[in-house]
Structure formats: C-alpha cells, structure tokens
C-alpha cells in the first residue's frame, strides 16, 4: 500500500453517515474510493454539484459534467447542480460537514498553507480559502514530508490559507489533531514508531500515553 492509499483509507474513516463532504483536487479525491459500505455520504464539488459518482465508462462522458479538476464524473440518483454563488453559500454558510484538502504545510497552531510558494509556484487558492473558513471540519490529507523535509512545522513559512485551526491532519505516518494546546499525536501508521513520527516532524508533538495504531479502512 503506498503513502497516498494509506492516507486516503484513513481519512475515509473520518466520514460520517448522511453528511455533505467536499474533497479537494488530487490526493483527497482518492478518499471517495474507500467510503465505508455502511454509510452514505454526499460529495459536493465546488464547480456546482452534490451527489456525483465515479467517472463514467469511456465514451459515456458528458462534457457538461465534471469535477473541480475538470475530470469527467457521473451524477448519482438524487444529484443536483447549481451555480458558483450557491456552491459557495453551501461551503461558507456552514452547510458542509467536512472538507478534505491537500497541504503544503501545517504548523504548531494548526494553521494550513496550501495555495502558494512565493516566487516559485502561484496556482491560486481556488476554493481552498472558502473551504477552510466555512466547512464544519477541515481534514488535511498530505504526505508527512516533501523531499525528506517535514511539512508539519513550528511556524508556517508559506502564506496561510486561513486564520482557522484545522481539525485533523492525516499523513502516511500519523494522525495528528491540532488543539488549543498544540499538536496531539493521536495515531501512528502500522509499523511506524512514535520516534519515527517525531523525527519527521519539526513541530513539537503532544504525546499522551500509548499512541494507537492507525485503523485503515479495507
């Protein structure tokens, strides 16, 4: 199982029955592949749909039915579409139960940076700033390090996406919950020691008792 699959499977366990969830482009979209069978989740895409499903078979795509990354999707029974202002009223207005976003950095205060690297890469924030400001829960799904460098840092060196503390960070090594007191190490991945997590993290981690092994959806 590669890092991305571990992360997506663990994030999938955060999904709750009968909730509305937005998945960011990239790694977060993989979460949709591992929704536990016993629950029903409606996925929203910020370009204007609730209730989309997997890409249709080749040749059956609809050019007017895509996700926020421009990829073809299908509409499940009960799906509905809407314009961008409505889409962001759902996001900003507290109607979205959870969003899963990728991250470049998360710091000791639980702040997320995920939209630009000054002077290098300026893709833009797209819907990320609204999602972090407005969703009830913000789960960051990202690899623990980038080119060997920790992405969980003492203080952000990149511009923050919002002033709000994110709810949970899931990596291929650990599950970390930002709290008022700091980053709490909740779980470690199977076969990964607490020391290994600490060595790959440059922010202080609060470790309380035994750190549980990450349950991964099958």
């Amino acid at each position: 199982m590669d890092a991305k699959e571990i992360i997506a499977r663990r994030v999938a366990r955060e999904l709750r029955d009968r909730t509305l969830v937005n998945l960011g482009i990239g790694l977060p979209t993989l979460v949709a592949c591992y929704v536990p069978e016993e629950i029903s989740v409606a996925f929203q895409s910020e370009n204007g749909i609730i209730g989309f499903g997997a890409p249709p078979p080749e040749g059956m795509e609809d050019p007017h039915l895509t996700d926020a990354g421009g990829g073809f999707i299908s509409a499940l029974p009960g799906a509905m579409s809407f314009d961008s202002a409505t889409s962001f009223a759902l996001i900003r207005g507290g109607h979205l139960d959870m969003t899963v976003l990728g991250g470049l950095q998360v710091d000791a205060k639980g702040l997320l940076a995920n939209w630009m690297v000054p002077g290098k890469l300026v893709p833009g924030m797209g819907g990320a700033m609204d999602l972090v400001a407005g969703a009830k829960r913000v789960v960051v799904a990202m690899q623990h390090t980038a080119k060997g460098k920790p992405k969980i840092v003492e203080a952000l060196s990149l511009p923050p996406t919002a002033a709000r503390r994110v709810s949970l960070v899931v990596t291929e090594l650990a599950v970390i919950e930002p709290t008022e007191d700091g980053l709490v190490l909740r779980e470690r991945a199977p076969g990964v020691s607490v020391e290994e997590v600490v060595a790959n993290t440059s922010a202080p981690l609060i470790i309380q008792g035994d750190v549980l092994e990450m349950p991964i959806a099958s």
Partner: protein
Amino acid sequence: MMRLAISPQAAAALVPDGASVMFGGFMGVGTPERVIDALVARGARGLTLICNDTATPTCGVGKLIEAGCVTRVRASHIGTNPSTQKKMIAGEIEVELIPQGTLAERIRAGGSGLGGVLTPTGVGTIVAEGKQIVEVDGRPFLLEKPLRADFAMLRAHEADYHGNLTYRLTAANFNPVMAFAADNVIAEADEIVPVGVIPPDSVRTPGVLVHHLIRRPQ
C-alpha cells in the same frame, strides 16, 4: 423583447481593445468557445479577464492568454495554465487572485446593486491586505467590493429569442451570476429554441439581462 442572434465575429467586433470581460466557465466547462476563437482571430488586445480560472493553453479562456489578448486577469486559480504563470512572472500579465467564493459574491454584488459583501474568507491571510475589516457580532469579516465588467460572455445550454437561458449540470458555474454584472451580456448556447419552448420554471437567466445571442453555426 426579441434578441438578435449575431455571429461570433460580430460579437468579437463589439469588444474594444482594453475592455474588461467576464467569461463563464470552470476549467473550460461552460465557456463560450466560439466567441473566444473569434476574439483570438480578431487579435483583441489589452483585455482584462474576469473568470474562475485560466483553464489550459488550448482550452477556454486559456486560448486568449496564449494569443496575447490579455493584460490583466482576475481569477481564483491559474495553476492549470503554465502560460498564465509564465506571463505573470515575465510581467506581461497582471494577476489578481481572488478566493473562488469571494469572486462569485463580488460578481453577485456587482450585479445586484450591493455595495459589497462581508465574508470571513481571507481574514488573516494575504487576501486581507489593504481591505477593510468589519466586525459583526464580534466576528471579523472582510469587506469585498462589487465587481462588474464591460462585457459578460456566457455559455448556456438552451436560449430562446427573448434571451432566456438554461444551463446543464456543472456548466452553469459562474454564468448565472455574471449575467447580472456586465454592461453588455452575450450568450452562446448549445441550442436556440423558439420562444415558449423553455418552461418558465426552467429559465435560470432571465432574458432581460441578455443583449445578444450568438448565432448557431452555419
């Protein structure tokens, strides 16, 4: 009120160099491609683009960037079009990045006679720089000003000769809000149907907002 259906070339001729133009679309989905091709063919220059994203160099508004028609972009995301980034770094294009939900609301405000909107999105980030913070019941909000343009170029599914428009699935995106926010509104539809064919409840953009339709391909 009957609307004239004009050719894409005639529509492109209405847009003077230096004009500000809103384009519906999200990664090229729901974008009036025939109008864009005509603007490229006319060799338009100095345009200000207001759109969600700049798609790719060969798709949607990306074609205008590639052809050198644009000097200013106001969008939420430019990451899928390397040309936009390259021209931004080279100083050929000025880019203002706006959170997607804020972009939708600024356009909505511009089209509905509001003096702006108060949003929590962007508080505590670069986006807040130079903007007024308004506290409401103890919560900080950014005052985001209305946004209008000289032209709005829309892509609809059906149009009738009164200018009434429908949209399909995720191709609606920014089109319905932009219809309110420009001095000249031009709609390119997949189909133009006789007046009376579109049920009143299905009309999503009232025809009174639309000045011209684009003629069906000959």
